[in-house]
């Protein structure tokens, strides 16, 4: 059983592309596309790593991360945050809440691969 990742993102074609490259890289990929029950999805699937979009339907990625960090099982889970706005305050907010890595859209596939592999090694 290889490394597993849960992609929480609401853009279907981004999900598809990310899933494709991560699968090719040997990851077991699961996806989830709304914010409301994202935390439950993480708890149920227990992935090695989470890719989390900030702007999700139903609930903000920041809120989801806050709840993950507060939980005993998910407190130390590596989380790569994705956002369409790379303003310094967004980055500061993500860091303060405890994002393991922060990436601004549009990103390249190679950047995503490098980031997730770095995070799982760390």
């Amino acid at each position, binding site marked *: 059983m290889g490394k597993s990742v849960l992609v929480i993102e609401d*853009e279907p*074609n*981004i999900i*598809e*592309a*990310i899933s*494709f*490259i991560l699968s*090719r890289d040997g990851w077991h990929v699961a996806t989830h596309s709304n914010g409301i029950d994202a935390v439950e999805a993480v708890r149920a699937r227990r992935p090695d790593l989470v890719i989390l979009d900030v*702007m999700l339907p139903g609930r903000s990625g920041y809120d989801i991360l806050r709840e993950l960090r507060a939980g005993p099982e998910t407190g130390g889970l590596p989380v790569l945050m994705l956002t*369409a*706005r790379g*303003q310094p305050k967004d980055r500061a907010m993500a860091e303060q809440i405890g994002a393991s890595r922060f990436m601004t*859209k*549009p*990103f*390249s*596939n*190679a950047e995503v691969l490098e980031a997730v592999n770095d995070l799982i090694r760390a």
Partner: protein
Amino acid sequence: MARTLTGTRIRDRRTMRGMRQADLARLSGISASYLNLIEHNKRRIGGSLLLSIAAALDVEPSALSEGAEAALLATLRQAAADRAEAGAELTQVEEFVGRFPGWAQLLAAQQRRLGALEQAVEALTDRLAHDPHLAASMHEVLSTVTAIHASAEILVAETRIEPEWRERFHRNIAEDSARLAEGARRLVDEIEAGGQRDATLSSPQDEVEAFLSDHDFHIPLLEETPTPDAVEGVLAQAGGRLSTASARLIARRFLDLYALDARALPLDTVAQAIPEAPARLDPAQLATRFGVDPGRMMRRLATLPGAVLADLGQPPLGLVACDASGTLTFRKPLAPFPLPRVGAACPLWPLFQALSRPMMPLRQVIRLAGRSEGVFLTHAIAQPYGPQVPNRDPMFEAHMLIQPTTVDPAQDPASDDLPRVGVTCRICPKAGCRGRREPSIMAEAL
């Protein structure tokens, strides 16, 4: 003593007419040496002497007095403060205004324009954070670009990709590029619409104040029919003058209050109750007589037509109100008593003293430091507003009515000891002021 502009103007007018100092002094009934002091702005001048000098020079007294210039001087001083490195000769600002009124107006107009543009730039810079439609369009475009970018990279990088996957990413790219085209068009629309929204280049408060100033803070339609329908009518007439939703909201709040005030205090009834002597105008007493709170009485007095006051021998009335934080919530400035446009006012104003003595009407004669050293009669009071709930501290607001007045040092020796207040610290010359918050750019502080 602060330098005043009047002396410089008298001197200019006299030399323009080719008149000798001694001759003007004789015609005005004063000594030549006293006139010399006046001309060099070393003596204040007002009242009957100003009238006789104006008559001797054959000019309107208003052409010599400086009241109307106070706002202009304040703007120029602010301009000098904003660009201190330019080294504008602040001590000669009054001379400059006196000698080159047109240039001074131009400079002041540019200063105001600059302020408006700076505000606009700030609003535009902040737009992504403050305009949810723009942010949504931007988010949409970036997400679509990301999807296209990721799919295209896969097609290029993965040489041994299965045909069905290749097919699928091609289709995704086609879909997403159509969405991107649509999103980009919407983004452009948002940016253009934003341009129109910000076209006025001024804050909502500025817009409302300009609108009210056009009407001299008097709205005849609401005097005839003080009803919500009439308020809608006034707003409809204002049209593009109030271009933003905030400006319309602020204006509506003012007009609703105006209508209530006008209904409680009809114009004719109030006009009949106003005494002809300015010194006897007492808003607190009038409030008791009409059974309204003093704040409402002050607002009503300040919205009477200038002509009605003038007929009664009353100088024009300015009004300023603030909430408990000291933020100015209502401003009707007078030319000789400008109110700060941005930033905080002078803490020595009776308006703020009133806040620490709730329900106590204050009547004070004050002198405005610097500028023309104009003297003003003020009435101030702080009172609760809004619904009063048992066991909960009330919210307080304060009102201050401002009326230009004169004092005669000969008859009233105490007039030299009048409290001196400023407009705002930065352009106030008062030395050793206990209320000072920031250094002044004015010279007297030495």
